[in-house]
């Protein structure tokens, strides 16, 4: 088995609140949006030719109601459009085994759990905080092995729709040269992250303009 390539990757939330059709007069996710747009701009600037998107597939119930494009892909396309990205987009939702990065940037649309507090979509599950903490630690340190090993069954129980995409990230790329968390929070009981991984040695995404903290 060959080692996966080093790659630039960005993780953003899959929340439909980021979609233009769900705008409000007062943006409930202004900080998340600013961070996500900044991170995707960073990725698009580094990979103007091609971006590979990993996200959750459409829920079976939603598919039965006529949803043809999963929210993760619509969020990705929307953020790429905001970034002015005009290159090729390869979509994997849900992601399969073979990523075929081929020099592109990786855009991972994935949330953490949705059971962080009593008002969360799935109500409070005491296991959720620890699960999210483990994911966040892995994202912060570029720990691909930890992502690869995320527990899918527990993830499902905690309404963590991002597990398959995060596992695919862990499988598809080598440990990054540097990682930076632009946003981490669970404003509605759902864990969101905006993270940038740089695949190039000697670079620190935190020093790169284009993002700001919420």
């Amino acid at each position, binding site marked *: 088995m060959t080692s996966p390539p080093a790659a630039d990757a960005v993780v953003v939330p899959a*929340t*439909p*609140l980021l979609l233009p059709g*769900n*705008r*409000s*007069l*007062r943006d*409930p996710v202004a900080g998340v949006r600013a961070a996500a747009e900044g991170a995707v701009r960073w990725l698009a600037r580094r990979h103007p030719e091609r971006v590979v998107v990993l996200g959750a597939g459409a829920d079976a119930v939603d598919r039965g109601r006529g949803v043809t494009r999963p929210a993760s892909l619509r969020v990705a396309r929307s953020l790429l459009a905001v970034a002015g990205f005009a290159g090729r987009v390869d979509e994997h939702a849900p992601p399969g085994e073979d990523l075929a990065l081929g020099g592109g940037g990786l855009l991972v649309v994935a949330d953490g759990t*949705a059971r962080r507090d009593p008002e*969360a*979509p799935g109500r409070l599950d005491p296991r959720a905080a620890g699960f999210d903490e483990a994911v966040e630690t892995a994202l912060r340190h570029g720990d691909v092995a930890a992502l690869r090993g995320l527990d899918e069954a527990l993830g499902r129980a905690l309404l963590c729709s991002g597990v398959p995409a995060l596992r695919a990230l862990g499988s598809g790329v080598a440990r990054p040269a540097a990682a930076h968390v632009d946003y981490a929070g669970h*404003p*509605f*009981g*759902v864990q969101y992250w905006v993270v940038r991984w740089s695949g190039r040695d000697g670079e620190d995404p935190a020093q790169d303009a284009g993002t700001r903290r919420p």
Partner: protein
Amino acid sequence: MTLQLGRHAFDDDATLMMAIVNRTPDSFYDRGATWAEDLAFDRVARVVEEGAEIVDIGGVKAGHGDPVDAAEEQHRVVGFVARVRASYPDLVISVDTWRAEVGRAACEAGADLLNDAWGGFDPGLAEVAAEFGAALVCAHTGGLAPRSTPHRVEYGDVVRDAVDSTVAQAERAVRVGVDPRSVLIDPAHDFGKTTFHSLELTRRLSEMTATGWPVLVSLSNKDFVGETLDLPVGGRLAGTLAVTALSALAGARVFRVHEVAPSRQVVDMVRSVAGWRLPARAVRGLA
């Protein structure tokens, strides 16, 4: 089209609340509650707090009552306009008058808008608006004289008459120099109309908005609401809000109201249902 109300400009999708402020001892709804100037000033503060963009200051009760000559009307209105102007530079000040001489004095004191609720009875009012760069409301009264009550009034088609009359007034106003961005038309419910006429105007308000002129509606607690629901003044809020909703859906832009906050909520809600306004903050089911 951008709405230019004197010194204030509004986007073409803005809806505006015009709060009624009476400087009268006998108006039908408040019965002199703001006859004392300080109480009227307190009401201005309250409606501004509630989000009104416009105050409509009137010195003469619309219906029957003691005669109020021009000098008395000016006495009631002009100094008050100046006081409000000084305290609220961002507020649109409208004056509800049919008299050009009162309009002139009000504009000199800082009024932005002349609400000619009696439908061009004194044609000089448009010239005053032009001279001062003020806006003008052109209302339909069916030719009724100020402060008179309709008696067996009939129209072949009340909506057609309202459109023709208000558009003719609007076009004349522009001809005498009023900025076309500063002219509104008002079907003037109850004025020169039976309840059936006002109901039909409400039902077919889109024919007025289709003219392209911004439409002001003055519905608040009026008799057509009271007669329709058999409710006295004081019990007409729900009926008022119902016709406010329908008027918003028909595209009315300015709402002359007693109750600012509920009217604003109804208009915002209707416009969001119509897809013309974003929700304030929608998270439900999307986090």
